[in-house]
């Protein structure tokens, strides 16, 4: 192995598993430490800077950071990163002094944003401090996109949503609500300097070919349309027995909403197996804990209608098998078809991109899935003025991806408007390393390992919450629980930094390391080296940190996989060859309050 180049910003960035996994690269351990210090406002601002919607995301994020959390590998359950974000949001003080100032004198460039979902809002936030004139076009009367129309209020209260949406609108967006764009061609003629399309993936899938579909139409509702009509108060009740088709988060929101607005019985029926359902584990748990059964491996075969009224749905029975390539497919299980009575069916089987308002002859190319042809990094379309982000870019994702796209799109728009190259002039990532040593045995972070198990978020009393579609189910951690959960964070951004010419090879670090991370051995090719470490390094997704050649001709190899960042190696090292240094990863971003 070659000695590791720790000044390559990706090296230590990857060690901070949560930050690396977060599409917006939120500096997670940094804000968690601030929560432990009761500095909620600062913790909030760190989040706001990277992910733009901390209060919203602290309740709704898909949290790709949590499965990545090191604690999953050292113990089992990740730190409740997402719910700690909410602690920061719930307890923050006045943030107005920290909001970036927007210049009164504009830079002369006008940008059009289409759709007021999280993607466009975040682009607006990044562009405004740079002096851009930002015009936002939204067909609905209010901003927020699917965060408002889809995510039910029992998961995301309106006040939380509005606070973070309005914060951006009030920075000086020129908004045009109730203004649907019906022709991109016409909009292009208005001569904006750049355009950002953030119109989401608004078309819910249907099952037009299942027998009985047409006859049953009055009793079948497309999940996302139905949820938005609940959100806007057009639908206030559903009666009788409800079957929800689908296994994603829309299905979970549909069933839990039905349960709250009058359904007598709700059942989720999924074509695929339980483990491969798209919904997150916690969403499935929440639905089931509200008494909603989830039935798997049942594709719908027929909508049974009698006398013009839906009677129920007939399902075939399948079982999952692996084909020779190891892929999951479904074959008939041999069990007889199952009939389930129903008065209503909610169809929650996915969404598609759909931009009928973009003419196909104006130079913006679409691929065969009807997604725009984009540069993956710059998000620029085949018309150089036009950028896409959020669900409209690559298909349905989630809010945190919308924020991440927005930061990239804002950088691209800025470079584009300055006449710079979107790739070669793109600001690079950087890393700073700051020693945490304060004196003998004194570190400026809480190095001690806390063995506590993950704390549970308290929920509202079901007897009440199941009757009120607007009542938030999760109560969130209070300050005390938030502190305790924060203590579980391993501070993965406080890195073990090795200086080879200081090491006297005394083995003290090897002996003290509780996780057997460190080995002094002869160099070799990485795969073979992995096998002969103190603890074989079987997790290839985690890097090895290799030093230069030491006096004995050996090298130091550290497996980053399960390091607790406890600092004991540095404590025990007689020569300071190990030091604990905080890595600050600079993720380039336009209009950041931190920059």
């Amino acid at each position, binding site marked *: 192995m070659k000695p590791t180049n720790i000044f390559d910003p990706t090296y230590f960035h990857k060690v901070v598993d949560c930050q690396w996994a977060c599409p917006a690269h939120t500096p997670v351990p940094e804000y968690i430490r601030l929560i432990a210090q009761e500095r909620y406002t600062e913790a909030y601002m760190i989040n706001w800077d990277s992910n733009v919607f901390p209060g919203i995301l602290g309740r709704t994020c898909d949290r790709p950071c949590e499965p990545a959390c090191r604690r999953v*590998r*050292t*113990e089992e359950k990740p730190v409740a990163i997402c719910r700690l974000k909410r602690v920061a949001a719930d307890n923050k003080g006045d943030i107005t002094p920290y909001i970036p100032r927007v210049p009164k004198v504009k830079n002369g460039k006008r940008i059009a944003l289409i759709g007021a979902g999280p993607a466009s809002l975040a682009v607006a936030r990044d562009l405004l401090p740079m002096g851009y004139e930002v015009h936002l076009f939204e067909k609905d009367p209010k901003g927020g996109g699917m965060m408002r129309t889809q995510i039910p209020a029992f998961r995301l209260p309106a006040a939380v949503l509005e606070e973070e949406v309005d914060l951006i609108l009030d920075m000086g967006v020129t908004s045009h609500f109730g203004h649907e764009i019906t022709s991109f061609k016409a909009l292009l003629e208005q001569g904006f300097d750049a355009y950002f399309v953030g119109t989401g993936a608004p078309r819910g899938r249907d099952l037009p070919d299942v027998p009985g579909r047409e006859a049953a139409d009055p009793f079948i509702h497309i999940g996302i349309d139905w949820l938005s009509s609940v959100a806007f108060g057009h639908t206030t009740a559903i009666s009788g027995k409800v079957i929800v088709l689908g296994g994603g988060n829309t299905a979970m929101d549909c069933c839990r909403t039905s349960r709250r607005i009058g359904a007598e019985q709700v059942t989720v029926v999924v074509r695929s197996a339980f483990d491969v359902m798209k919904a997150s584990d916690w969403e499935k748990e929440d639905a089931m804990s509200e008494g909603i059964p989830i039935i798997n491996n049942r594709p719908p075969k027929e909508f049974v209608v009698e006398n013009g009224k839906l009677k129920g749905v007939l399902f075939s029975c399948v079982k999952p098998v692996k084909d020779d390539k190891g892929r999951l497919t479904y074959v008939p299980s041999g069990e007889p078809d199952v009939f389930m009575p129903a008065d209503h069916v909610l169809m929650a089987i996915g969404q598609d991109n759909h931009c009928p308002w973009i003419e196909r002859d104006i130079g913006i190319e679409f691929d065969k899935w009807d997604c725009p042809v984009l540069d993956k990094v710059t998000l620029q379309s085949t018309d150089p003025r036009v950028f896409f982000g959020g669900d409209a870019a690559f298909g349905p994702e989630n809010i945190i991806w919308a924020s991440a796209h927005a930061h990239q799109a804002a950088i691209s728009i800025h470079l584009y408007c300055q006449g710079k190259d979107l790739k070669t002039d793109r600001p690079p990532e950087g890393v700073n390393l700051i020693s945490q040593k304060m004196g003998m*045995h004194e570190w400026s972070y809480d*190095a*001690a*390992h806390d*063995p506590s198990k993950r704390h549970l978020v308290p929920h509202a009393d079901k007897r009440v919450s199941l009757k009120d579609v607007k009542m938030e189910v999760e109560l969130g951690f209070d300050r005390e629980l938030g502190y305790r959960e924060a203590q579980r964070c391993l501070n993965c951004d406080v890195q073990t930094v090795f200086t080879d010419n200081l090491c*006297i*090879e*005394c*083995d*003290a670090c*090897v*002996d*003290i390391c*509780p*996780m*057997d991370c460190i080995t002094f051995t002869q160099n070799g090719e990485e795969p073979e080296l992995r096998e002969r470490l103190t*603890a*074989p390094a*079987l997790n290839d997704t985690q890097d090895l940190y290799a030093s230069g050649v030491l*006096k*004995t001709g050996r090298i130091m190899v550290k497996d980053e996989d*399960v390091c*607790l960042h*406890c*600092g*004991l190696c540095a*404590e*025990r*090292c*007689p*020569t300071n060859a190990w030091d604990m240094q905080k890595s600050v990863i600079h993720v380039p971003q336009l209009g950041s309050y931190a920059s």
Partner: protein
Amino acid sequence: MTFVAKPAAHHPRLPRNELGLTRRDYEGSVSTLCAGCGHDSVSAAIVQACAELAIPPHRFAKVSGIGCSSKTPTYFLGKSHGFNSVHGRMPSVTTGANLANRELYCIGISGDGDSASIGMGQFAHIVRRRIDMLYIVDNNGTYGLTKGQFSATNDKGSTSKKGAPNLYEPIDLAGIALQLGATFVGRSFSGDKHQLVPLIKAGLLHRGFAFIDVISPCVAFNNHAGSTKSYEYVRGHRGDVVAADFVPKHHEITADYAPGTREDVMMPDGSLLRLRKLADDYDPHDRVDALAYLQRKQREGEVVTGLLYLDADATDCHKILNTVDAPLNSLAEADLCPGNAALASINGTFR
């Protein structure tokens, strides 16, 4: 010293021995020695060896004298019996423990000061008596605990931290152990667990008196240029004579060595000690030659390490004294007091 306690968390795939215990179950409390002290590595080697042997912790007795080295039993085998005795008196306390309970695995930990100065007499006599134990000296050539005076194992001409040379001849404890009849003698280096751990295992299983002289640098007072017990000096002047690999019982034996260079020695518990000769002219079964070799190499400035001497058919003090098989501490009054009739008949023989 360290104030942050070592977390109980451990590697998810940390191996478990036949008792279901991990290496971490054989640790003690966190060390208060100077960071980088060789003694901590010796403790870690003992932990590893004991865990791998899968001996229940309560079967060990660790006994020590006074010194940084003698403090180390606190830092390993936290669930075992222990006695931190007075300076140089570890051998008598261990003798008592072993005589009372022959089933204990006795580990005596001492320093070069503890054994080669104040405890020299005790050391000599426990070797002679062949107490069934593993005697380890953490040899750093200095009195670490009292801040760096030359010890009796310090080489003549080797300098103190401030540059003053040592004027006296050194005592070679391994040589003395050989001379006084030790049946297992090794020398090793705290910085080489590959060598040290199998030696500790073999020494623990050896029936009789096993002695290992471990060069264990004192980072605070004897790790400078000019010292012959520093990490750098020892690494640069080591000569390994015989490597001893430990093969647990029921283990398939796979590695092949050139004939003549390899010898398997059966240990009392059925495991094998596989000896590999690294120096052609060395025979680990010839006490007199071994002694001569050590002295010759010492003159040349080489630190001879490895398994120096092994008598696989050795016996111990209990055999010499012809004691009963049961541990003496398990004998009840009925076993010990034969009754009036027996006493009368014994008395009769003196009439």
